[in-house]
């Protein structure tokens, strides 16, 4: 049995800007096929608007599928939502749940009551978890007085309070400083490894987070799963190709479009900087460099730095989508 399993899952939204206008359709999930094993820490990596949150909402029974099926621990989200809710929990990045006039401890206690946890056990577990995330000295602080980062730590504690077998974390480290994000990642990994029945599905648009934490990663864009494997294997898929970071004295967007026509060019991005432009290129092999250098010379541009590097998940994303995640986000309507 899989912890999460989807078959040809689709979700569309019908959106009307005004009442008089006819509704237009937005495809949020398109034929998603996914299998997450029990005990796995699984990442969904994609830009904002890719469909990650929609998928989480379907799996947490907040949203019905428009087509296909989705199962959590073998239970159908459309037919058995009550059974699923006993086994899951969810934390979203930047959420403002709870009540500002309650203290951290009281907010957490309140949510445990909705899961039927006896107060004494709940209070003991709250203090234990607050200690783990370094929030024990704020247990009696009103949540309205917490910074965004501390509030997110409280939310994360809420997710673990109920001992779910499948936990959904939607951008959990959003708003956390580097140290706090690192602590949370470490705790999450340990929590999953403690018990083989525990599964964690995490969405993120931070490549490092996906790479560092996840056993397997699915790359999602425009509602479609483009690739799914371990971070290592995904990167190795580019091993026959060369990944280069090149800084040049000058190159504008139209010249970069021309560069794409060089035989052996796979994918690439350009970023204008003060001293010229930075290129991140995936080339068929090292021999393509000769053509590239010639092209740059013809354009009057010189190479300032060039290095070949190991492929990252960002490169995998670029090779699949043709754009960096940032570029997709800038151009994507969320």
């Amino acid at each position: 049995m899989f912890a999460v399993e989807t078959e040809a899952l689709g979700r569309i939204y019908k959106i009307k800007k005004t009442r008089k206008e006819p509704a237009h359709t937005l495809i949020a999930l398109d034929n998603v096929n996914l299998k997450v094993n029990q005990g796995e820490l699984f990442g969904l990596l994609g830009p904002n608007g890719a469909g990650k949150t929609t998928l989480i909402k379907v799996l947490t029974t907040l949203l019905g599928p428009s087509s296909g099926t989705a199962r959590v621990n073998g239970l159908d989200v459309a037919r058995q939502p009550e059974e699923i809710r006993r086994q899951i929990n969810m934390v979203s990045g930047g959420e403002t749940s709870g009540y500002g006039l309650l203290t951290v401890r009281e907010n957490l206690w309140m949510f445990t009551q909705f899961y039927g946890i006896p107060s004494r056990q709940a209070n003991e577990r709250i203090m234990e978890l607050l200690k783990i995330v370094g929030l024990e000295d704020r247990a009696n602080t009103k949540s309205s007085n917490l910074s965004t980062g501390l509030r997110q730590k409280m939310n994360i504690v809420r997710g673990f309070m109920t001992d779910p077998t499948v936990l959904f974390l939607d951008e959990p480290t959003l708003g956390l400083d580097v140290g706090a994000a690192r602590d949370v990642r470490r705790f999450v990994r340990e929590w999953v490894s403690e018990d083989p029945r525990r599964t964690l599905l995490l969405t993120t648009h931070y490549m490092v987070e996906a790479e560092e934490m996840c056993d397997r990663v699915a790359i999602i864009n425009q509602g479609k799963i483009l690739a799914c494997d371990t971070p290592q294997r995904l990167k190795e898929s580019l091993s026959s190709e060369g990944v280069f970071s090149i800084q040049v004295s000058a190159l504008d967007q139209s010249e970069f479009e021309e560069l794409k026509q060089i035989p052996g060019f796979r994918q690439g991005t350009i970023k204008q900087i003060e001293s010229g432009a930075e290129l991140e290129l995936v080339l068929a092999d090292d021999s393509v460099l000769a053509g590239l250098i010639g092209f740059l010379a013809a354009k009057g541009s010189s190479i300032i730095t060039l290095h070949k590097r190991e492929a990252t998940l960002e490169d995998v994303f670029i090779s699949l989508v043709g754009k960096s995640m940032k570029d997709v986000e800038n151009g994507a309507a969320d």
Partner: protein
Amino acid sequence: MALQTKVTRRSGPRLFFQTVIGRAYPRIIGTQRDLAWLFFDIFLPFLSMVAYVYIYRALKAPEEYIGFVVLGSAMTAYWLNILWAMSSQLYWEKETGNLALYIISPTSMMAILFGMASGGLFATTVRALVILVIGNWLFHVSYTVVSFWALFLVFVLTMAALYGLGMMLSSLFLLFNREAWHTANLLQAPVMLFSGFYFPVRVFGFWAAAAASIIPLTLGMDAIRQLVFPSGPLLGFLSVKVELIVLSILSVAFLFGAFYTLRLMERLAIRLGRITDRLG
């Protein structure tokens, strides 16, 4: 870093009860922590109560009318609680992200609504009592209670029906979420007029008073007036007995209505994606 504390989970009626207590808690504790209610829920309604008292005194209305105003002002707190803290509550819960967390929890949404209602009822009763005590002290209102048991029963049934209505409205407000604020505004002043908060509803005539009786406070206040003021029965709309029967029917109807509208709301929200609007 294995967690040492193991947790067990209850289900069935104990889960329901725990949920009610859990959700009532913020309302109850809020009375103690956020003292803004002393100004907004005591001082401001108090000003309008004083205005009505002086209007009646200027018109040389019978002294019992002053009692009607004090009683009406206390009961107004319940209606305002229904409108602003109960009916629109699920809408605000959605905005803060709590609603999604309530829905994905294994508890029933009815328990959540009961929790909201009982917490609100407690907090509002504190406000109503303060208004009643100050009003009685300032304007020397005297009461002649015919039957304490009947009075208690009327109050309980009125509150059951009223908070049942509030629970039902909370789901409906969520379905029409963008209009929630305006709907609450729309229901505030007209209901306060037609429910006869400050005067016997009988003056409107039978059919208007009967239509106004869909708001449980109309019959509740009419019955209370009949039970605590000597001239109450003369000014009453229906007999207390009939009003008790109607209030019982309204209680059951609104509680069932709340149950079904909640189910409908949840189904529609899941189908249409209205529980959480953001797309990701």
